[in-house]
């Protein structure tokens, strides 16, 4: 990645602790977005929280806090308590990748139709119709 970007990887067990640390001690208090990645070859799903800062002088810094979880049982803790703005981003990551955010108040479909009963669409083994 370019300058003023940093990616920190951890496990679901430690992510909440890390989130609170980067928010309170390092000043990364502004959630930018949450992304998911399906690493099908290594049988893992990755969740990446991109967080910025409102502290003067480090507004250009984006910290990526990531965690990896097994594809067959993807359960991670929600980080809404750390960054409230992550709520809908996590909901989207849940429906698109099938990752279960434990403690999330509402994991119903955000963008997908309510009656979607196929695989989560952004997983690599889901193939779009006609492809």
């Amino acid at each position, binding site marked *: 990645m370019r300058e003023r*970007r940093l990616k920190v990887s951890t496990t679901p067990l430690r992510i909440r602790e890390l989130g609170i640390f980067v928010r309170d001690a390092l000043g990364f208090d502004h959630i930018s977005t949450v992304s998911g990645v399906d690493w099908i070859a290594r049988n893992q799903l990755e969740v990446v929280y991109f967080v910025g800062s409102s502290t003067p002088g480090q507004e250009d810094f984006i910290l990526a806090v990531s965690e990896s979880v097994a594809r067959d049982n993807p359960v991670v803790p929600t980080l809404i308590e750390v960054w409230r703005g992550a709520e809908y981003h996590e909901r989207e990551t849940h429906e698109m990748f099938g990752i279960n955010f434990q403690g999330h108040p509402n994991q119903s479909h955000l963008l997908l139709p309510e009656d979607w009963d196929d695989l989560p669409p952004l997983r690599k083994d889901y193939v779009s119709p006609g492809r």
Partner: protein
Amino acid sequence: MVEVESEYSPEADRIMSVSLGPQHPGAGHFRIRLWLDGDYVVRSEPDPGYVHRGEEKMGEYRNYIQNVPHLERPVILDSSNILFAYSLGVDELMNSKVPPRGQYLRVIMSEINRIISHMYFLAIQGYFMGHTTMITWCMGDRDFWIDLGERIGGARVTFAYVIPGGVRNDIPPYAIEKGLKTCDWFEKRMDEYEKIFFGNPMVHQRSDGIGVLSRADAIALGATGTVARASGLTFDVRKDEPYSSYEDFEFKTPVLTQGDSWARAYVALLDMREAVKIIRQALKKLPQGSVRLKLGPQPRVPAGETYARTEAARGEMSYHIISDGSPRPYRLKIGVPSAKNLRVLPHLLHGVHVADIPVIYWGLNYWPVENDR
């Protein structure tokens, strides 16, 4: 702590649940579920997704050049800015240096798009306040900017102008003169907007103190763009991490502190004033040379990961692109500003009158199609 939106139970008899949209004339393809106690909103839940088209999945099936036209579809009002961030990301992965003339043209086009988008925003905001002069003036004047964009990019709204490696074509010489004239005319026009719209006591009554977002909440909820800058935050990617020669231009980041619907509309007008300044400087200082790098129809992008962002009209537009060295992106996440501001909506709607919902909702500069992708 998870925020509790209401002390009322939606199941209680006196609470009525109402669905606003998705056929609401202003909301477009978007629904808000409301729980009302008389005329007051006690709880609300946005329900987007009516125009979800799977842009991110589509991106994984197409190569980096084929991705250009479909990626601007989510926000055709602001089509250059959504491609700008994508192009920056791909340039970064390919380690390509865009020629200076290409960088300036990217800036010109994205600032024109900022004005086009804000004019639409102000038009509908005026309409929601019952100020019909604003919708006719803004929609009419917006067309002069669309004309200018058409002379540069060749299409009316979906320009597909900013592409990886630079811009698609050079600016025709007569468009420079036309652009400078449009800037001069528009600056005078904005003075009139200020008098008839922002100085209007009716507009003040309808929007002063409506939907106040504090600075702390704006940070915690992840607000960006006009919403954040109306609440005292100085977020502006153009200033924070100047990309594509933005450091060459003199402009300010307009910031207001009231955090209400009036400030969110007024900050858009101030944004347009700065955009005009940037366009004028860029047209006058336009360097000579080529406008893009030759990439070929199927560029090879080295394996890597990037998080590129630009300041779009609605706020921070970001792309998380992962390349595995193949011709197509492995992952293409579009972080659109509407999705970042959506969490603010239920927070602001708590406890307001039903009549204030349109003003608050549209004041967030929310674009349903952009959020749904």
